[in-house]
């Protein structure tokens, strides 16, 4: 299972077109990230969500500045399946409990931006804006455990050092997180070649792998990636 992460600021028409392209190419899920929403103190645009939802027939997760049950409800009513929270959950962890109680854990994804430091794996927040990005003073592994206790149904771990570099997923960090993570775990950050997908599934036993730039640029085409993974003995949707 692969996701596609929208992180560039594009006009809506482009997003609809991209969404339709990934749908047709066999992406298994789409994640719509409005990464500057939280640092800018706003929530992801409902109109975009609704327009994307109309063309998509695959699972669709939306992230960006969701601070309350009301924010989430609007996005779910606009056609999102799942909502993903990151910085707002670091500021107010009870948000996860509230979302899980209202919509069920299956709707609630927690995104975590994590950095390897000399103090171990650390959670960062406001990573959508380089000037505001900062250490949230949380240890990644304990945050992984806390969000599950609070009702997260899925965790997306974005390994910041690998993100955008295309040198491969951070297998070591993902393995450490996998040990503590009993809900579906999605690897994010670092995909640059088909072998990176095969190794993250095999070596870190993640449930899904997410990528953005290699798909947007056309460097990796989803049908070819799936064929490669199938050849490597990894079960993927035809």
């Amino acid at each position: 299972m692969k996701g596609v992460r929208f992180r560039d600021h594009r006009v809506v028409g482009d997003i609809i077109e991209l969404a339709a392209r990934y749908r047709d190419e066999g992406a298994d899920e789409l994640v719509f990230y409005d990464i500057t929403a939280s640092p800018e103190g706003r929530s992801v645009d409902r109109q975009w969500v609704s327009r994307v939802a109309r063309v998509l027939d695959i699972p669709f997760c939306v992230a960006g500045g969701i601070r309350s049950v009301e924010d989430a409800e609007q996005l779910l009513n606009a056609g999102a399946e799942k909502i993903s929270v990151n910085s707002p959950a670091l500021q107010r962890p009870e948000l996860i409990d509230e979302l899980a109680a209202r919509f069920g854990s299956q709707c609630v994804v927690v995104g975590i931006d994590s950095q390897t430091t000399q103090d171990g794996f650390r959670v960062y927040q406001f990573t959508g804006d380089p000037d505001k990005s900062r250490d949230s003073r949380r240890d990644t592994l304990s945050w992984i455990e806390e969000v599950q206790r609070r009702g997260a149904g899925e965790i997306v771990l974005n390994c910041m050092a690998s993100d955008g570099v295309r040198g491969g997923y951070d297998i070591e960090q993902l393995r450490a997180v996998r040990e503590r993570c009993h809900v579906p775990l999605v690897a994010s950050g670092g995909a640059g070649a088909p072998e990176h997908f095969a190794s993250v599934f095999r070596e870190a036993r993640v449930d899904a792998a997410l990528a953005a730039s290699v798909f947007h640029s056309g460097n990796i085409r989803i049908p070819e990636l799936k064929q490669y993974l199938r050849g490597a003995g990894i079960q993927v949707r035809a």
Partner: protein
Amino acid sequence: MSADGVDLTIIDSGGANLASLRYALERLGASSIVSSDPAVIRAARRVLLPGVGAAGDAMARLRATGLDQEIPRLTQPLLGICLGMQLLFAHSEEGHTRCLGVIDAQVRRLIGSSERPVPHMGWNNFTPVRNDPLLRGFGPDDFVYFVHGYAADVGEHTLASTEYGSTFSAVVRRDNFWGVQFHPERSATAGARLLKNFLEL
């Protein structure tokens, strides 16, 4: 596509996110209305019973409008989706809830493992075990999208089963009542085929 103008009513069981289901039906050219009025539902040619959330809450909402009595008496094709399928059963372990009793079997909690996290969220194939018009065109290579923490036992009502740690009912039927554990509205072309089959029943 000849589904245009099909009189399709989606039961509003509250709390459920109906947008993606309505969009999927729109893509098939089918218009639908959403209602919790027993008279409107009784008069529909086809009925969909979706559901997201907990079994106990959903049953409480159906009871509040008398739909718990009405649904088992319906005679037109009805398709339960996800929790909506589970509600067709006699009982769910989720909150020890007595359900609609259309199918005399149990819904149980999925048992997870390190390889099989629960809730089960993801794409799986399913194995048709009986021929049925709802499954026309389906084979063992079709993947569909599941999101659930509970699942129905396999029994004589099972049209197709899926393996995730244990084997459970992916598609069920009793008389005019069909149910699918997965989300056809989010299952790409396989899901669209299933909805189209339902619209042609």
